[in-house]
């Protein structure tokens, strides 16, 4: 049974797959819960419940355990009232229930100042920035990638420069983008574009080159000429792989989001995160980061489902 599960490159059965998928989320949660709720695993600090006679301690204050123990020792020797406290984790490591509560509260708490946004408004901002950055990038990147993958002329003409440009870190263009495009959404979209576009062209041209050349030959013997080869064979031939590439690239676009949103006036989910970190509401910070994860995963699952719907032949592409 156990040996079966560890057979190389064998797919696990349906039930096992569901259990394993759930486990992949449960395991990190359990570890997090253990570290949060079981005192002797970590809990390196002490939260003061009664300061005793130590002058600089106040109730609710957190300090390192060593320091606390030393103060207790000092007070004992001087026969004064020793401070009391409980072992806790640092404030930057909130427990699951705190983050869970924050997830809920974040959406129902009105902004603290009038010109600030609700969380869902910040999120919507971020999603729009990602969408436009990725959309504009794909608008140019996909056709360029397909052309470069199909015609060697375009490949030799575009790819050397793109290879060079993709090593330039997108955030490095932040100041330039603000100077050229202003401080609002435009420079942020530009950063996501720069971060995505160059990788996109190379990834897609590579995918296009992997198309079985004998399909092109077969099409030519059936009378297909230049344009129909491109639109009737190359494009449909790679479209399923292209779709998968775009799913992966969309994930990359999200990784550029945080840097992009710090440029100019901080906005979107990043503004929320930095703001909450400033107030030391770390549970809110974790909640916001998790929301990004949820949005990313949901989008990807949705696109995967969509892919299965619009490409009915996809199941057997590898074998056909």
């Amino acid at each position, binding site marked *: 049974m156990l040996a079966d599960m560890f057979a190389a490159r064998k797919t696990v059965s349906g039930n096992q797959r569901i259990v394993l998928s759930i486990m992949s989320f449960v395991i990190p949660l359990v570890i997090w819960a253990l570290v949060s709720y079981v005192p002797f695993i970590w809990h390196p600090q002490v939260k003061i419940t009664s300061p005793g006679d130590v002058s600089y301690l106040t109730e609710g204050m957190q300090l390192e355990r060593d320091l606390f123990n030393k103060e207790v020792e000092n007070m004992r020797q001087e026969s004064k009232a020793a401070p009391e406290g409980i072992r806790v984790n640092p404030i930057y490591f909130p427990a699951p229930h705190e983050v869970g509560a924050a997830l809920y509260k974040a959406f129902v708490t009105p902004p603290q100042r009038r010109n600030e946004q609700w969380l869902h408004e910040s999120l919507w901002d971020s999603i729009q920035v990602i969408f436009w950055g990725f959309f504009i990038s794909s608008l140019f990147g996909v056709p360029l990638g397909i052309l470069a993958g199909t015609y060697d002329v375009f490949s030799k003409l575009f790819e050397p420069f793109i290879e060079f440009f993709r090593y330039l870190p997108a955030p490095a263009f932040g100041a330039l983008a603000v100077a050229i495009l202003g401080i609002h959404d435009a420079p942020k979209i530009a950063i996501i574009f720069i971060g995505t576009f160059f990788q996109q062209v190379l990834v897609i041209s590579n995918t296009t080159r992997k198309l*079985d050349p*004998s*399909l092109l*030959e*077969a*099409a*030519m*013997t*059936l*009378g*297909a*000429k230049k344009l*129909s080869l491109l639109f*009737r*064979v190359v494009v*449909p*031939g790679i*479209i*399923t792989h292209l779709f998968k590439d775009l799913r992966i690239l969309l994930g990359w676009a999200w990784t550029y989001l945080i840097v992009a949103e710090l440029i100019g006036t901080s906005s979107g989910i990043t503004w929320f995160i930095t703001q909450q970190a400033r107030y030391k509401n770390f549970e809110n910070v974790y909640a916001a980061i998790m929301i990004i994860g949820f949005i990313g995963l949901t989008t990807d699952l949705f696109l995967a489902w969509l892919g299965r719907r619009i*490409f*009915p*032949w996809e*199941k*057997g*592409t590898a*074998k*056909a």
Partner: protein
Amino acid sequence: MSNLQLPSYLEQSEDVRDRFARMKKRPVTLNVKGLNKEFNTPQGKVTALKNINFETYKREFVCVIGPSGCGKSTLIRILAGLESPSSGSVLLDGKEVHGPGPDRGMVFQGYTLFPWLTVKKNVMFGLEMSGHGNTSSEEEALQWIDLVGLSKFANSYPHQLSGGMKQRVAIARALANRPRILLMDEPFGALDAQTRAKMQNYLMEIWQNIDVTILFITHDLDEAIYLADRILVLKAHPGEVQEVIEVPVPQPRHPDQLLSPEFLATKKRLEELIHPPAKEEDITSDHLNMVRMVRVDDEVESVF
């Protein structure tokens, strides 16, 4: 086989001789003149094909056979227009051809069906390329699909079909274009023996009923004899025409003929041409350098 008393493969019965005489009066479909093909490799120039000359008559079935490396795939790719010859010319119905075109249909060993199209759309592809309307090409495609017996699968995708079925679709797809010649590059090479035999009979039936000349590449001697009117035997390094054999087995062909004297005589000749008697040094180097690796007291002491 060498102990059997076989007639010469050159001996033809009255009927067969008469048929060949009539066949040679038919118009020439494909004419290959002085074809050469050289490749530039890092090791220098390699001559793949040297001075290939032959013609096929209308509705003839020609098989091309030869040892590996004789350039038979290169030859068919040049005929299809997928590669260009270094010199020489290919004439179809007397007109020189350049580049691929729908007048020369091709069936590949690897099926090459478009995985994103259904069986019907695959067969419609060539018709649409040559400007047929949607309804007329659909109608015609369905007729061809019916002809290869796959009407039930018209709306299936290629990955749902077996290898033999896929190859039948590929044949229908090539024939739907009404090519002058059907080029087949080891089309049944990837199929199991049973399916292969079935496909050979399908192909014979299609060929007997449709106005098409077939040039068929294979490395299977039985397949070549069973299918062909004439067999073009190539030799390797460089690829040259060694002999053109007129198959003395009467048409129409039947599986019972596989053991007839004419069949075996032709096979013997092909064996001689393709696997010439090895020289002495070849024989010694042809054996593995084996020592006995079975325990002396093993249950099975010897396999004999």
